[in-house]
């Protein structure tokens, strides 16, 4: 097999919490626990990393982007570790790996016009040879994502709507043409009517420019719409992965099943059947178990073994990994 585009090998991230200056810190939290997965290099793909709050998905994104260092494990981009890339070819790494963040309101410097963000990008990555060429590139990229340059250039970020700001992030992507986008909840703050349009842009980036994307989300609905494959995270661990169609139509892990049955269907004729018992919704014990399977406290199938030992991530079917004792025997 050829060298993958991105490979996470047993990534673990431990945060210390509490205590000033770290002097009194007694508690640690394993935000990401031995996570491994790969994204292929031979064809562009959109991989969805799906998890609820506290699942460690944003921490993983930040480690891939070099904003956080893993406590242990390796992240390899095209066969070389990210830390090495950042030490030796920082600019080159960011030319190839670009983020799209969740909150389009907080990423812009409010004192600079939007043009400057784009021009700086062009200058930094040496994308154009002249000022005119730079301007032409900006105008073309804006038209591509449905923004009118004549209306929007020269504006300050606060004069733009959330949808426009998030599209300016796409303009940046179109200018830089990275090979991999790490998109952390890119549509959760934009309106439904514009969401599908943004997701279609991710699809066309994949198909036209060959850009791969790690699409990080809590929302299985949008994941099923854009992703080729889905990785399900629960409390810092991968509990299941596989092709998007299979994970959605035939979920293996009880956690994935719970997520899928909890999704509200936008059709009043398909309402939830039985009510979920509110008293079992959340327990006082930390929902994440200290030992054993991360999901055992909420799992209807949990046995003593699940409470004692963490199930390994095994290949249950070709191309389908699951971490659950239901599939080990």
């Amino acid at each position, binding site marked *: 097999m050829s060298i993958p585009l991105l490979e996470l090998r047993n990534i673990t991230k431990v945060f210390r919490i509490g205590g000033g200056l770290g002097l009194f810190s007694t508690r640690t939290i394993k935000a990401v626990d031995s996570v491994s997965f790969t994204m292929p290099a031979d064809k562009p793909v959109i991989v969805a990393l799906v998890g*609820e*709050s506290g699942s460690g998905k944003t921490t993983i994104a930040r480690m891939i982007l070099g904003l956080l260092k893993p406590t242990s494990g390796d992240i390899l981009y095209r066969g070389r570790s990210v830390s090495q890339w950042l030490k030796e070819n920082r600019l080159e790494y960011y030319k190839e790996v670009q983020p799209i963040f969740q909150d389009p309101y907080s990423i812009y410097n409010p004192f600079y016009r939007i043009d400057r963000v784009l021009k700086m990008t062009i200058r930094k990555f040496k994308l154009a040879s002249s000022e005119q060429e730079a301007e032409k590139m900006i105008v073309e990229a804006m038209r591509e994502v*449905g923004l009118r340059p004549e209306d929007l250039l020269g504006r300050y970020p606060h004069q733009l*709507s*959330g*949808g*426009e700001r998030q599209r300016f992030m796409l303009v940046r992507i179109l200018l830089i043409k990275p090979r991999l986008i790490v998109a952390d909840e890119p549509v959760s703050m934009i*309106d*439904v*009517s*514009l*969401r*599908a*349009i*943004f*997701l*279609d842009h991710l699809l066309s980036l994949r198909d036209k420019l060959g850009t791969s994307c790690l699409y990080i989300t*809590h929302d*299985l*609905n*949008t994941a*099923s*719409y854009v992703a080729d494959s889905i990785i399900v995270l629960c409390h810092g661990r991968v509990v299941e992965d596989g092709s998007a169609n299979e994970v*959605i139509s035939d979920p293996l892990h009880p956690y994935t099943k*719970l*997520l*899928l049955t*909890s*999704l*509200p*269907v*936008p*059709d*009043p*004729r*398909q*309402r*939830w059947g039985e*009510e*979920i*018992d*509110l*008293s079992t*919704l*959340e327990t*006082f014990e930390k*929902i994440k178990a200290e030992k054993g399977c991360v999901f055992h406290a909420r799992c209807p199938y949990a046995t003593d073994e699940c409470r004692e030992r963490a199930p390994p991530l095994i290949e249950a079917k070709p191309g389908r990994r699951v971490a659950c004792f239901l599939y080990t025997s």
Partner: protein
Amino acid sequence: MKSLLQVKDLKVYYKSIWGDFKSVDGVTFEVYENEVFGIAGESGCGKSSLVDGILRLVAPPGYIAGGEVIFEGVDLLKIPEKELRRIRWTKLAYIPQGAMNSLNPVIRIEEQIIDAILDHKQMSKRKSRQLALSALKSVGLPVEVMQMYPHELSGGMKQRVIIAMAIALKPRLVVADEPTTALDVVIQRGILQLLRRLKEDYGMTVIMVSHDMAAHAQVADRIAIMYAGKIVEIGFVYDVFEDPLHPYTKGLISAIPSIGRKYVKGIPGLPPSPLNWPAGCRFHPRCTYATDVCRSVEPPMREVSPGHFVSCHLYGEKA
């Protein structure tokens, strides 16, 4: 169906140096007894301002520029503040957006609920404690929660404490503004089912404001669609989802990415600004059916089929 709340031509404006932001610009609807009434729309369409208007919570620079809110025969916008206070909580409760973060972090849950009860109705402490307990029970929280502090609870549990506070005095109408945003899907489902139960088990009337059409599909009996400070369509939830009339509603419904749905399409263009709404129909710049009349004349609200109202020139002749 008996009417419980009538909102007539309500206008909520915000003063600014550029002029008035007309967030809610002439909204009329009626809520019946014992129903879940959903108000849907995207950010900036005026949903939250509408709620503020109904509950008379608009704070400066905002002001009520006109209209009536009739609840049980009285206009909430005209009665003295003191009388309004008597109605709030006992008859009309409110679950604000992001309410779970409004609990006082240094006071036990028990005291917070009891304070809220005693603040609005005179009774013995013992009686109020009983009410607090039964409210907690009805939202599925165990007794232990009474003695806990907010930080010991998860987001979903805090949201349920807020709902317990709101229903402790058995109000007739509960208004919930975005009750499930920022909660995980499984918890979301629990909260939505709980709102539905307020209607079914406790006979309350619920107004739920949410941007999430799927949430409305799951719990609402009737639904109003807001766009640019106006209601563009009102109807029974089945009618609106199966036979949406307004082009905006149609677009909104087909824009929801959902499992098993192959065809998803966004609405091109961007929502307009409340400072300067488009003339005529406010949706016309984004509407594929727009004609000259749409660009100049504001379409009136028409009843196209029983209980199904729309404000769109496409339905002019049928009325």
